[in-house]
């Protein structure tokens, strides 16, 4: 395996430029010429970064690995943070294997810049990290603004107001869990996956929950109109005060949030406002670096953003096999795992694994929604099953071809879709 670890950056570049990747990859894998890859830095110490580091070791890379993380925590599982973590003080979300990597952990201070030509990762006033190869896996941050772009403003009254929170990291989840002990009245802005899951979790604690969604139905974009309406009914059946087609316009209170105002003037008493309006890729530190940034770190199909620089996970915008090469950014757990491993392989010039079909899950009131492929309003939905007990199966098509499916309760059917979609990667 040692020869893989010595494949140099300029050889990786040649591979990008060469048609017929199979042949070119063999050349990279069997050459010992070029720059030795002895120092690999990973910006971002989450699931994608950890998976990348594990894959580097699995491939026999025995050089330095430095993981630079904004949070003070080693990698952990994020999905439970909106679910069981909030209910169980004993819940353990740590990802195993971090102690066996032989890696240097530089935690609690994010990467603040990239000196691409000088091959250095900058960390504010701290010592930069020199690298031969870099994997960018800085993830995404919770959106706190009602919109994006230069005209975006924070919601009036919410800046720094205690009780107005987001839920993204472990510290956020710990603070939220602590706040639940006072049995707050909760308003959640945004009925996407996070907002919907959080509403379900809080209702299991019998807390009063108002869920405010700007769209016509919850989860309209990822699931489509019809399924969104099913989710809306599910929320209502479990006692959520669902306000559709409404936005949170402002929050106010003396010393901490006491009420939330909607855009139709409605004033809701609230002890806690959770802003769950999605996440944005953590890109700020890369401005001016020379990398192509366009709604994510843009990569080629190998996950490479530049010679010797790969990107993976929530921060990466990569060509989708299922969508004929269209650039997409995917925030799924499965994508962080797959892309992290793929980025590691591309950096070392190892052959790529066959691509994995994207998949995700979401837990709502004892139902587990699962999807494979790509889904949502951009594609034509076809309702295959809808049972009175709430089980359903919907497939999504583009140009007459199936590109994804979502189900609650028809998991084995989903496996068949996965098989079908996997052919696109063959």
């Amino acid at each position, binding site marked *: 395996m040692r020869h893989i670890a010595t494949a140099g950056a300029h050889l990786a570049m040649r591979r990008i430029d060469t048609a017929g990747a199979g042949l070119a990859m063999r050349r990279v894998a069997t050459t010992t010429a070029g720059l030795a890859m002895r120092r690999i830095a990973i910006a971002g110490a989450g699931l994608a970064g950890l998976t990348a580091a594990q894959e580097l070791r699995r491939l026999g890379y025995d050089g330095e690995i430095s993981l630079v993380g904004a949070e003070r925590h080693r990698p952990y599982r994020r999905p439970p943070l909106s679910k069981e973590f909030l209910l169980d003080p004993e819940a353990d979300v740590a*990802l195993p294997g971090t102690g066996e990597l032989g890696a240097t952990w530089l935690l609690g201070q994010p990467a603040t810049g990239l000196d691409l030509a000088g091959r250095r990762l900058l960390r504010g006033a701290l010592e930069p990290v020199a690298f031969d190869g870099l994997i960018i896996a800085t993830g995404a941050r919770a959106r706190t603004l009602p919109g994006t772009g230069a005209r975006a403003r924070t919601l009036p009254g919410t800046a720094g107001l205690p009780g107005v929170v987001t839920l993204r990291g472990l510290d956020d989840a710990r603070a939220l869990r602590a706040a639940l002990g006072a049995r707050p009245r909760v308003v959640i802005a945004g009925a996407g996956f996070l907002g919907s899951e959080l509403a379900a979790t809080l209702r299991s604690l019998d807390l009063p929950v108002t869920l405010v969604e700007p769209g016509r139905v919850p989860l309209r974009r990822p699931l489509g109109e019809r399924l969104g309406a099913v989710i809306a009914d599910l929320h209502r059946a479990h006692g959520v005060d669902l306000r559709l087609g409404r936005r949170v316009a402002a929050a106010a209170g003396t010393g901490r949030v006491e009420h939330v105002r909607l855009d139709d003037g409605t004033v809701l008493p609230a002890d806690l406002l959770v802003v769950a309006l999605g996440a944005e890729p953590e890109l700020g530190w890369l401005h001016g670096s020379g990398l192509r940034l366009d709604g994510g770190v843009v990569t080629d199909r190998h996950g490479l953003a530049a010679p010797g620089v790969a990107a993976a996970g929530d921060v990466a915008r990569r060509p989708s096999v299922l969508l004929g090469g269209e650039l997409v950014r995917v925030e799924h757990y*499965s994508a962080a795992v797959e892309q992290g491993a793929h980025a590691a392989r591309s950096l070392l010039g190892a052959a790529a694994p066959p691509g994995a079909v994207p*998949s995700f*899950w979401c837990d709502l009131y004892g139902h587990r929604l699962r999807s494979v492929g790509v889904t949502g309003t951009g594609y034509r939905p076809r309702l295959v099953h809808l049972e009175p007990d709430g089980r359903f199966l919907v497939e999504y098509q583009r140009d007459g071809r199936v590109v994804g499916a979502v189900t609650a309760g028809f998991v084995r059917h989903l496996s068949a879709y996965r098989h079908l979609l996997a052919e696109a990667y063959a």
Partner: protein
Amino acid sequence: MRVRVDLTLCETHAQCVFAAPAVFALDDDDELVYDATPGDALRPAVEQAVLSCPVRAISLDGD
């Protein structure tokens, strides 16, 4: 190659079923069933399944 799944951890996210459908499946009650001794040709798929498991319930030994 020997595959083990800690079924007390398994939450049937089904990520392994998608990563290695020849080894992992869900039965009629949506419980995980798997081939504990798959052929070595399936190793890459099983390794992907190990990494994909959100609760890291799968382990692989017998190199």
